[in-house]
C-alpha cells in the first residue's frame, strides 16, 4: 500500500509520466539500432582497454572517438559496469560485436542515464509561471511541458531506437537553463561548461550563454532605458565565472595538454574533411541551396545553357554522395558556412546584449543560436534539430506566438528524422509515435491558448497537413514505382527540401518575433 499512497500524493502525475515513458523505452529495446550502437560499443572498448594516451589515437575501428574527454570518461565509467554483462564487448578487436547482453546493457545505459533528463524536466517545470493555470490538471502548462519534454518523439527515436545518449546531455542543458531561470547563475555556467566537454555540438549555443552571463550577471544593473551601466561591472563575478569554466576545461583537457595531444584531439573533434551536407541532407538552408542547384542544372540542360559533358557525374546520378558538387551555383567552403552562421547568430546576440529580457530573452536567443547554426552549419546532422526543439518547448507553453513556431518547428523537425529509421518493422512505430506526439502537442497547446486567436493560418495548416501525403508518397507509393531503382534518392530529397521550408519558416518567424520585441520595446521607452 505504501507505494500506492506515495503515487497518489502530490506530484504523482509527473512520476506516472516518467515511469510510463521509461516503460515505453524498455519496449523499444528489441527495435533496430544503427551503427551508432557499434560506435558506442567501440568507445566502451577503447576507454576500457587502452590508457588515456591512446584514446584519441586508436583507429582499429572506423568509428574513432570523436567526442570530448568527459564523454570518454563517461564511457570509461560505463565500461566498468559493462564487464559484468559481457566481457567480450570490451575488446577493441571485436568489431561489430553483438550479443543480447550487450544490447541489454547498452539500451539500459541510455534508459537509466535519462534519469538526469527527468530531473532537469522537473526543474524546468518549476520555472514556468503558473498564474493563469486552469483547475484541470491536463490543461496546466506544467503538465503540458513535462509531456512535451519527457515524451519527445525525437529523443525517443534517436536515443532509444537509433541509439545515442542525447537524453542525459539534453538533461544537462535543460538543467543549466533551469538554474539560470532560478538565478543560480554559477551553477548554470558550471553545468554548461561540463556539457560542452561532453559533446561539443553545444558550442552552437555557447554565444547565448556567454553574452547572457556577461550582460545580466557580470553587470549587476542597467540604466532605466535598459542599456548597460558600465560602472556596475562586477569583477568578482567575472573572475568566478572564468574560474569555473577554466577549472572544468582543465579537468577535461588537462591530461591531453600534459600529453601534448591537443592537435590530435582537435582534429578528431572537428573533422572538416567531411562534406557540406550529411549523407541525408539535414533540412536546412544548404538543402534548399543544393536543391536549387540541381533544379537549375536540370533546367539548364533542358534549355541547352549547360554542356552535359562538363557536369560532374556524381551530382546527377545521386544526391547521396558525401561530396556534393554544385554545377551552377558556387561551391560552399567550410569558412563560408562559418561566416554565414556567425552572421545569422549576430542579430540575436546583439538583441540579448542591448535589450536583455531576463532568462526568457536568453532562452529565445539560445534557440535562435541553435537554429541558426542548424540552418547554416557545416555537415549538420538532422538530429541536431533536437538542440532547438527541446528548449523551445519551454517557451511554447508560455506564449501563443511561440507555441505556433514551436509546433511548426517540431512537427517538421521530427518528420525530418524519419529517414533515420528505414527498416520495415520500425515503420509503424515511428508513424504511431510521431502521430502521438504531434496530436498531443497540437491539441494540448490549442486548448491552452484557446482564448487567443487560432494558432495556425491557412498556409501553415496546409503545409503541416502536407506532411501526411508526403509520407504516403515517400514510403508507401514510391517503393512500388519503377523509379525506385533509377532515382532511389528522390524520397530523401523530397523530405529534406519539404522540411527545410518549414524549418526556415519557423526560424525566420522566431527571428522576426525576437527582433520586433527588441525594437518595439525600445521605441516605446523612447
Amino acid at each position, binding site marked *: 500500500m505504501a507505494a500506492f499512497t506515495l503515487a497518489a500524493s502530490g506530484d504523482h502525475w509527473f512520476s506516472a509520466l516518467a515511469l510510463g515513458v521509461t516503460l515505453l523505452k524498455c*519496449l523499444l529495446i*528489441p527495435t533496430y539500432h544503427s551503427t551508432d550502437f557499434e560506435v558506442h560499443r567501440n568507445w566502451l572498448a577503447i576507454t576500457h582497454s587502452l590508457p588515456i594516451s591512446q584514446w584519441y589515437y586508436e583507429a582499429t575501428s572506423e568509428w574513432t572517438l570523436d567526442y570530448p574527454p568527459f564523454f570518454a570518461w563517461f564511457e570509461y565509467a560505463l565500461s566498468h559496469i559493462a564487464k559484468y554483462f559481457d566481457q567480450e564487448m570490451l575488446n577493441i578487436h571485436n568489431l561489430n560485436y553483438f550479443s543480447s547482453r550487450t544490447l541489454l546493457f547498452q539500451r539500459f545505459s541510455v534508459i537509466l542515464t535519462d534519469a538526469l533528463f527527468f530531473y532537469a524536466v522537473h526543474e524546468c517545470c518549476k520555472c514556468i509561471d503558473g498564474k493563469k493555470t486552469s483547475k484541470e490538471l491536463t490543461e496546466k502548462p506544467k503538465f503540458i511541458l513535462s509531456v512535451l519534454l519527457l515524451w519527445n518523439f525525437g529523443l525517443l527515436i534517436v536515443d532509444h531506437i537509433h541509439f545515442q545518449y542525447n537524453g542525459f546531455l539534453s538533461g544537462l542543458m535543460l538543467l543549466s537553463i533551469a538554474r539560470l531561470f532560478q538565478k543560480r547563475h554559477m551553477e548554470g555556467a558550471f553545468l554548461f561548461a561540463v556539457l560542452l566537454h561532453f559533446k561539443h555540438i553545444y558550442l552552437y549555443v555557447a554565444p547565448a550563454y556567454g553574452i547572457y552571463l556577461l550582460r545580466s550577471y557580470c553587470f549587476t544593473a542597467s540604466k532605466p532605458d535598459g542599456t548597460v551601466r558600465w560602472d556596475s561591472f562586477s569583477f568578482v563575478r567575472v573572475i568566478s565565472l572564468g574560474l569555473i569554466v577554466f577549472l572544468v576545461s582543465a579537468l577535461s583537457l588537462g591530461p591531453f595538454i600534459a600529453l601534448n595531444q591537443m592537435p590530435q584531439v582537435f582534429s578528431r573533434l572537428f573533422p572538416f574533411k567531411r562534406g557540406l551536407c550529411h549523407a541525408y541532407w539535414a533540412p536546412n538552408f544548404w538543402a534548399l541551396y543544393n536543391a536549387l542547384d540541381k533544379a537549375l542544372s536540370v533546367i539548364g540542360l533542358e534549355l541547352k545553357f549547360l554542356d552535359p559533358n562538363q557536369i560532374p557525374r556524381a551530382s546527377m546520378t545521386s544526391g547521396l554522395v558525401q561530396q556534393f558538387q554544385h554545377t551552377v551555383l558556387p561551391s560552399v567552403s567550410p569558412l563560408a558556412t562559418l561566416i554565414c552562421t556567425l552572421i545569422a547568430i549576430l542579430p540575436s546576440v546583439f538583441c540579448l546584449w542591448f535589450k536583455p529580457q531576463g532568462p526568457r530573452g536568453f532562452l529565445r536567443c539560445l534557440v535562435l543560436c541553435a537554429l541558426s547554426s542548424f540552418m547554416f552549419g557545416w555537415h549538420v546532422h538532422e538530429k541536431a534539430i533536437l538542440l532547438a526543439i527541446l528548449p523551445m518547448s519551454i517557451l511554447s507553453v508560455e506564449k501563443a506566438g511561440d507555441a505556433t513556431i514551436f509546433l511548426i518547428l517540431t512537427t517538421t523537425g521530427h518528420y525530418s528524422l524519419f529517414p533515420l529509421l528505414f527498416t520495415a518493422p520500425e515503420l509503424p512505430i515511428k508513424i*504511431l*509515435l510521431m502521430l502521438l506526439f504531434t496530436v498531443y502537442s497540437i491539441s494540448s497547446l490549442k486548448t491552452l491558448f484557446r482564448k487567443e486567436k487560432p494558432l495556425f493560418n491557412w498556409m501553415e495548416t496546409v503545409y503541416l497537413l502536407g506532411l501526411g501525403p508526403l509520407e504516403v508518397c515517400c514510403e508507401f507509393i514510391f517503393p512500388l514505382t519503377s523509379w525506385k531503382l533509377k532515382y532511389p534518392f528522390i524520397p530523401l530529397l523530397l523530405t529534406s527540401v519539404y522540411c527545410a521550408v518549414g524549418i526556415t519558416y519557423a526560424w525566420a518567424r522566431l527571428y522576426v518575433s525576437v527582433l520586433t520585441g527588441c525594437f518595439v520595446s525600445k521605441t516605446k521607452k523612447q
Partner: protein
Amino acid sequence: MENWYWMTLVVLIGLTVRWTVSLNPYSGAGKPPMFGDYEAQRHWQEITFNLPVKDWYFNSSDNNLQYWGLDYPPLTAYHSLLCAYVAEFINPDWVALHTSRGYESQAHKLFMRTTVLVADLFIYIPAVLLYCYSLKEISPKRKMAVALCILLYPGLILIDYGHFQYNSVSLGFALWGVLGVSYDWDLLGSLAFCLALNYKQMELYHSLPFFCFLLGKCFKKGLKGKGFVLLMKIACTVLASFLLCWLPFFTEREHALQVLRRLFPVDRGLFEDKVANIWCSVNVFLKIKEILPRHIQLAISFCLTFLSLLPACIKLTLQPSSKGFRFTLVSCALSFFLFSFQVHEKSILLVSLPVCLVLNEIPFMSTWFLLVSTFSMLPLLLKDELLMPSVVTVMAFLVVCVTSFPLCESTSEEQLQLTPFAVSVRRRLPGFTFLPRIIQYLFLSSVITMVLLTILSVTLNPPQKLPDLFSVLVCSVSCINFIFFLVYFNIVIVWDSKNGRNRKKIK
C-alpha cells in the same frame, strides 16, 4: 473536440504498445518440427488456400490433421483464407502447399503481425472505444482512462502480439455482442455474438449469460405478447447467422459432424499442460486423470460447471439488467475456466474481457484480477521468451490503473459492491466490519506471492525431480486466486438486487 483527441491518443498508445510487443519472438520461433501457434495459423492459411472447403477438416494426404489440423469453427477458416489471399499476393511461397511448412522469415513475421493488428484495429479496438464512450454517469476523462486500461490489458496483448493468436477477433465480436444486447439492439447483439461463437468455440463460456439475459428480457416483456415476438426474432437471427457461417459444410451430414468432432475433442482428456483451474491443481494431490474413467470425468466436470454457474444465471434470467449481465459474464466464464473440460491457459482471456467491462464499477478488484490472469499465463510466456515485454506491459498497466483510479481508496465496502452482503452478515454477526481490511491484506499477499514466484521461476532452475515445480506453483496460486474471485463475483451478483430494494427502503 477534446474527447476526440484524448481518444486518438488512447488508441495511439494502445497501438504503439501492441506493435512494440510484436517485435518480440512468437511461439515456437525456430523450433522444428512442430513450431507453435504461429505456424498453426500459417498452416491454416496454407490449407484453406490450397484445398477445397470440403477437405479442410478431414485428414488426407494433403492435410495431416496431426500437424496443426484446423480445430476452430468456420469463421476462423474463412479469416485464414482471406489472409492467405493477401499472403499469396505478396509472396506465394508463404502459403505453398507442403513446401511452406515451417516457413519463417522476417518479412513473413511482419506480415503475420500486421494481420493481427489489422483485425484488432477493425474489430476489438472500436468496440472498446464505443463501450467506454457509452458508459454512463462518468466524466469524459474517466471514460478515456477506462479505455486506456482496457486497451493496455497485458494478457491479451502478450498472447495476440507475442505468442501469436487472433483472440482480439472473437473477443471483439463478443464485445460488440455485449454492446448490442446492453443497449437494446438485441438482434445485432446476437448476430455479433454468433460471429464470435463461430470464430472460436471457446466463446461458449459467454453463451449462457447471453442466453439468460435475452430470455430474461423476453420474460419481462411478457411471453405472450411482445416478448414472444422478440424471442422468435432472436432465434431466427441466431439460426440464420449459424446457417450462413456453416453453409459450405451442410452439403453432407458427415461433414458437419466431422467439424464438430474437430471443435470438441472430448478424447483429449480433462486438461492438458498446466492450467490454473481446479483439475490441474487437484491433480497435484490426486491423479484424477488416472483414477476416474473418461466419461465420469466428463460428467463430474459438467456437473460442477453447471452448479457453479446456476445461481448467477437464474438471477440474471429473473432480473435482467445490463450491469448484472456483465457480472454474470464474469462469473460464468470463470466457472467454465475453473471446472470445465479441456481448458487452455489462454482461455483466461475469456474471463478477462468481461472483467475489463466492470473496471469502472470495481476498479480495485478488476485490476487485481487482470494482474492475476496475466500472471497465470507466466509459464507460457516464459516458454515464448516474452519475459521482458510481459514485465514491462504489466507494469505499464499497473501505472495506468493506479493513476486513473485511486485504487487504494477504493477498497471500502461500498466501492467493492459488498455493502448489501456485509449488511446481511452483520444481522447475524454485528462485529463484521473488517471485510475491506481483509481484502487489502489478501491483495497484498497475492501480489507479493506473484512477484516472488515470478522472480523464482525466472532466476532458479527447478530441482531435477520436479521439473514443473514452478509452473505448477504458478497455476495453483492463480487457481486459489480465481476461486476467491469466483466467490466474490457470485456474492456481488446474488446480493445485488437486495441492494436495490434496500436503497428504496432507505429512500
